[in-house]
């Protein structure tokens, strides 16, 4: 336990030191912001260090080791010193004046880090969902240390996924010397804390910009009274990372018997439309009730029956509660960093100083930030790029710039950044293959307003009220409003219609296996009527709401303000971006192996949550300018009510998930709080735990390990996930997703089956040689699946390098 507490401290210290080290360089990118980039410097430093290690590592210069981190950190520090110049005094002066901001930022980071570390320690197990996959990546990176990292689930190949986040975590783990099980959970705490600090910093910047008279020059030379910013700054991380959607409140009410059956049936959220499970009190007792919060949106076919592949509508707190270290979670603080960069661009454009930004260092750093997002969570890159571009546009519009040359220069800046993004991360792109294959029209599935409100109501109420109020303080740009709202809606409708017609004419729609599922009982001839009825009569409200929000936001962003608020156009842009992200999947979605829109909804809604959380926090800061006391009170009351409603989920879910805050890990018949996500195995399967520990202790050497192959989200692939040793084939379904096909995986699954089942040593030897297999793992899973007669040959022809009651690990001789 003491070692784990020390590990927490070391990780916190490393993050803080990293931030200080890179702050001068971060200030080159974000120096025009009121906080001079301080609050985003930690995330910036980790990303930049990771970029240097990855780039140099791809050419063999560096590895995922503490030493390489030192080299990269040294380079970052040196670059910061060289580029700071006279900036250095500015930074020192700023820190002296704004020590409260520094202190608040550090306290938020520390508090969030410790809080999440404590939560993870009560439920640290790395099991189920996609956690084994994430563990496998991390294990592979930490074991092999070379880049590009080998794919742990397809021996002989590199990882074909956006795994930059795992590299950064691997670097932290290597520097601190923790095991992979501890690194996994500390990573969650670190990402949580980085996102908290970055969101708080963003809101501070937005508030500070609002309080800067236009004629005052650089906003970062002011000292803002603490009472102006502390409330929204503290609220931002809560809205982004702590509150849940209203499903928690609904679960509570449902369990308590509130609401009629008709209401629950109308709401049509899975399990909530069923009669309540018997149990005393208000606490939800249904098994995995907390999981339902990520399945609020239900897609119904034309007959009104729910489809199997239900959309995923996660939100950040759910991810941290689940303990899911997926790229969309890892990317949170870095997406916030990109939003900060967009804000800096907005300020430069507004102050007509984009030429100061469009020089080598800031442009290169912007490219690293944006390009890094593509490598970390590819879904975030288009959004970040769009925000940066729109920030320039809105800023230039707000400055009243009419010089075409300036606009052109901004375009060149964005284009240059895109090119640099690709060049800087070329080693990633050369080995990356994606399952994405274009866009698919969605004429049928529409998000119902009721479910949309359950999902986003906590954030949309304050954000929407703010937009309404802000609209009254601006001479709306009606042209922009029309283009943004109705124009966007019309464009999406047109695109959807066009793609649907093309799909029908070419027979692609009919050829899909989901076609009959989509229609349900509706005859094909009635399809269009059913679609139009759904779109315009049954469930048009969400689309119209979002279109309205887009229109209002567009009008505000490009309007002429009558009320002080330099940040308003930028925040309106964020709100509009969120609206666009949630509107798009109702018309088109990305083609992937799922074939439905569940993954597009998943990623887009997650991003929308982030953007609207920022808007909602900002909205609170703006309410001080409402002249009517009644208005302020009403807003405060409504916002408090919805936020309270949103806090029901985290409170109840944490209680359930941690089994009443007692902890879920049992070691030596005692509940233990531990950060080691693999500690549960000492009780659940001690033989396998010992075997994995033995494998981890073996010096990295060439050769793969053979283990049983099975489906995704199961315990298959557990040996390679826990040890980092590459296996012949892990989860076939995921390899299909990552590589867009089975070309690389081939018939490996059959070969592994043959390896274990065949009674002929020669056949097995061929397979061993073909895949350079060093170890053959025979645990209880393998013994259950494969015949004993096939396993006997290993005793005769291989050396038992490790053996205990239920696991034998055979090693090839010589």
């Amino acid at each position: 336990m003491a070692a784990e507490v020390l590990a927490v401290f070391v990780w916190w210290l490393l993050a803080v030191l990293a931030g200080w080290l890179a702050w001068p360089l971060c200030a080159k990118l974000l120096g025009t912001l009121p906080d001079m980039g301080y609050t985003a410097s930690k995330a910036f430093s980790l990303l930049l260090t990771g970029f240097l290690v990855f780039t140099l590592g791809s050419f063999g210069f560096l590895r995922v080791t503490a030493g390489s981190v030192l080299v990269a950190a040294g380079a970052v520090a040196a670059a910061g010193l060289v580029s700071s110049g006279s900036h250095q005094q500015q930074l020192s002066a700023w820190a002296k004046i704004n020590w409260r901001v520094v202190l608040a930022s550090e306290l938020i980071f520390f508090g969030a880090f410790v809080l999440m570390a404590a939560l993870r320690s009560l439920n640290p197990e790395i099991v189920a969902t996609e956690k084994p996959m994430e563990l496998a990546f991390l294990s592979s990176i930490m074991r092999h240390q070379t880049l590009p990292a080998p794919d742990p689930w397809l021996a002989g190949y590199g990882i074909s996924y956006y795994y930059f986040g795992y590299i950064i975590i691997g670097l932290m783990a290597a520097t601190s010397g923790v095991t992979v099980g501890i690194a996994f959970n500390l990573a969650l705490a670190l990402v949580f804390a980085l996102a908290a600090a970055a969101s708080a910093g963003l809101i501070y910047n937005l508030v500070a910009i609002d309080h800067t008279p236009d004629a005052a020059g650089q906003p970062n030379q002011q000292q803002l009274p603490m009472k102006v910013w502390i409330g929204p700054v503290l609220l931002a991380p809560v809205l982004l990372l702590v509150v849940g959607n209203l499903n928690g409140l609904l679960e509570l009410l449902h369990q308590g018997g509130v609401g009629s059956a008709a209401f629950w049936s109308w709401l049509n959220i899975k399990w909530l439309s069923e009669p309540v499970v018997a149990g005393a009190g208000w606490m939800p007792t249904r098994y995995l009730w907390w999981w339902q919060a990520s399945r609020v949106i239900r897609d119904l076919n034309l007959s009104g029956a729910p489809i199997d592949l239900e959309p995923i509508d996660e939100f950040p707190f759910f991810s941290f509660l689940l303990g899911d270290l997926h790229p969309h979670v890892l990317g949170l603080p870095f997406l916030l960093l990109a939003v900060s960069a967009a804000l800096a661009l907005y300020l430069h454009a507004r102050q007509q100083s984009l030429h100061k930004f469009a020089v080598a260092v800031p442009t290169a750093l912007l490219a690293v930030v944006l390009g890094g997002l593509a490598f970390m969570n590819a879904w975030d890159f288009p959004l970040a790029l769009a925000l940066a571009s729109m920030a320039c546009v809105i800023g230039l519009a707000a400055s009243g710039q009419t010089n075409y040359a300036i606009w052109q220069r901004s375009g060149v800046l964005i284009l240059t950044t895109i090119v640099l993004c690709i060049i800087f991360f070329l080693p990633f792109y050369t080995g990356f293959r994606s399952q994405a294959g274009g866009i698919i029209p969605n004429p049928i599935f529409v998000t119902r307003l009721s479910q949309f409100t359950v999902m986003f109501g906590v954030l949309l109420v304050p954000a929407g009220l703010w937009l309404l109020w802000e609209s009254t303080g601006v001479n709306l740009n009606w042209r922009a409003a029309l283009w943004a709202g109705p124009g966007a809606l019309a464009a999406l409708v047109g695109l959807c219609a066009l793609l649907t017609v093309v799909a029908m004419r070419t027979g692609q729609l009919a050829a899909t296996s989901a076609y009959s599922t989509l229609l349900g009982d509706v005859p094909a001839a009635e399809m269009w009527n059913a679609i139009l009825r759904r779109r315009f009569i049954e469930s048009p409200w969400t689309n119209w709401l979002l279109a309205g929000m887009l229109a209002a936001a567009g009008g505000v962003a490009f309007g002429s303000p009558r009320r002080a608020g330099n940040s308003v156009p930028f925040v309106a842009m964020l709100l509009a971006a969120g609206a666009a992200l949630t509107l798009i999947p109702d018309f088109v979605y990305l083609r992937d192996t799922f074939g439905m829109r569940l993954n597009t909804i998943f990623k887009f809604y997650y991003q929308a949550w982030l953007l609207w959380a920022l808007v909602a926090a900002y909205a609170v800061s703006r309410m001080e300018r409402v002249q009517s006391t009644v208005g302020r009170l009403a807003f405060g009351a409504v916002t408090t009510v919805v936020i309270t409603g949103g806090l029901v989920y985290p409170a109840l879910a944490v209680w359930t998930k941690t089994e009443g805050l007692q902890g879920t890990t049992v070691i030596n018949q005692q509940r233990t709080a531990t950060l080691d996500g693999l500690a549960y195995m000492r009780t659940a399967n001690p033989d396998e735990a010992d075997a994995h520990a033995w494998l981890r202790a073996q010096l990295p050497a060439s050769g793969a390990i053979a283990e049983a192959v099975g489906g995704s989200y199961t315990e298959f692939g557990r040996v390679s996930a826990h040890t980092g040793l590459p296996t012949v084939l892990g989860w076939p379904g995921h390899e299909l997703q990552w590589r867009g096909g089975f070309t690389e995986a081939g018939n490996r699954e059959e070969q592994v089956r043959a390896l274990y089942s065949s009674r002929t040593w020669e056949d097995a030897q061929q397979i061993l040689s073909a895949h350079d297999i060093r170890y053959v793992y025979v645990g209880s899973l393998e013994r259950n699946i494969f015949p004993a007669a096939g396993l006997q040959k290993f005793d005769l022809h291989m050396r038992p390098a490790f053996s205990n009651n239920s696991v034998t690990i055979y090693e090839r001789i010589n």
Partner: protein
Amino acid sequence: MNASTETLHAPAPFVRLHIPLLVDWTMEAWAYVLLGCYSAGTRLIGLGTAPLAGSAARDAMWAWEHARGLALPATAVPNSALLFSLQMLLFWVGGHATETLARLAPALAGIALVFMPLLLRKELGAIGALAASALLALSPSLTAIARSADGIGLALPLAALTAISIWRWQSAQPAPGLQVAALAAGAGLACGPEYIASIVALAITSLLIAPQSLRQWSPVLRSGRWWLAVGLALAASSTAFLQYPAGLAAAGDGWGAWLADWLAPQGTTSFFTPLLTAVLYDPLAIGLGVIGAATAARRIPAARFLSIVSLVVVAISLVDPQRRAIDEGGLVIVISLRAAFAMNWFFAADWSGKRAQICAVHACCLFAVCCILYLVLGGIATGSTGAIGQTGWGLLSVLGVVFAILWLVTALVGSWWDWQIARRGALAGFVLTALVWTTASGSALISTRAGSAVELLTGESISPHIRLLEETATQVSLRARGSSTDAEIVVLGPPSGALAWALRDFANVRYTNSLSATITAPIVITPGEIVDPLLGSQYLGQRFNYELTRGRLPTDLPGRIGYIMFRKIPVTATQLVLWARADAQLLR
């Protein structure tokens, strides 16, 4: 650090040696030539003795494989990236890998280190600089370090060069000082953890003595050119000019290793070992350094700086959990430089009349007494003095008597003639005694395996055994395959660096984790404890000593005296057995 402009009492100019048609050099120049020859001899003779130490052999093996264009394991991380790069280049240029080439770079760097006091001639004075160079040349510690295939052999000279260059720059000398410092720092950062330790000691000293001097560094650290020079030097030296890209990671791992060592549990080396080793092997430098500090530290900033550095190095060696050789080597370098002031003090006296002769006689008397002491101690160690000195009190009595005699002689000289000359006579006598001791230690080091003092402790050498093993394998290969290096060799055990190095020229070496009767290789090598390797009756084995491990220090007083005097200690030999197949046995 601040340069000193204090004027030293300079001795009379050296006499010039004029050889018609050849040279017209001063004695000082000739002295440096002689020192160069001596240091070259001590550092280069016997450089090819086998084997290399474990990790040094492993790194050299990797360097050889890389020079041949073979792929290295992904986790191959040499201890010193710079040494690895140099070895790789030397192997590539030389066309083959030998112990001599593996140790050549540190040896040459050690020779260069001897001449570094020349760069401080202005501060140390002509005689002081020469004396410092002599001490560096004679030092057994530095000789041993220079003869090892270890990164420390490069780290120390580079650290000295960095420090001296920075000193030159801060003395308002031209900019090349800074550029040289940048290049030396870049190369030094590729040396391994030892360089970091040296720079940390220098930085701490600067902070203690003259923190305001660090302000001069602010514009330098913000200069892109400085960092570019450091970065390019680091990249070039760690990667052998990009021939070994992973060298940059290895350099970084060296820094990480230095940091990690501070958090690691206590090493096996005891608290005072570095200091005691320095006193045991370098009493001349230690003694002169102490006198130099006593005579000059208060008056001369350079002497003061060197004194503080040596104290910082001692402090670091005391708190360092790992007690590295850098602690001892660095101390010797600094002390040797400080010893220059002792020599300046020695010569800054009135030598008119017969003072020189009196001093010489005084010194010889003291030397003679010390020789008698040596004989007495030797007798105690071998037990031939009977009960005398067999106990602590007895030994103290002997030492007390001897030191009383020494003091009496000095007091006589001082009171009869001149206390100035008496002090200098005592110093000369000490120098004479310590010089003999030091030279003897150095010579002993030369005659044993380079880079390891273990053979010093037994008088035995492993090198002939290793060469015999290699020769035997070659002969068996010739009989079995008709070629000296083509025979298949099976080695039981993991591929250890030292054995892999010894068998580096053989093309078909295979490492296995178990033997069986199906093995038919002409040569099989097993650990010495295996007497029946289950190879069938067709193999015959021959034992070879492979490595020596020192035993525990003697616990009795005569034993400990014997260790100090003669470096005698029990050692155990690790053995290997070479099994030759029946048809390839040399006996047939």
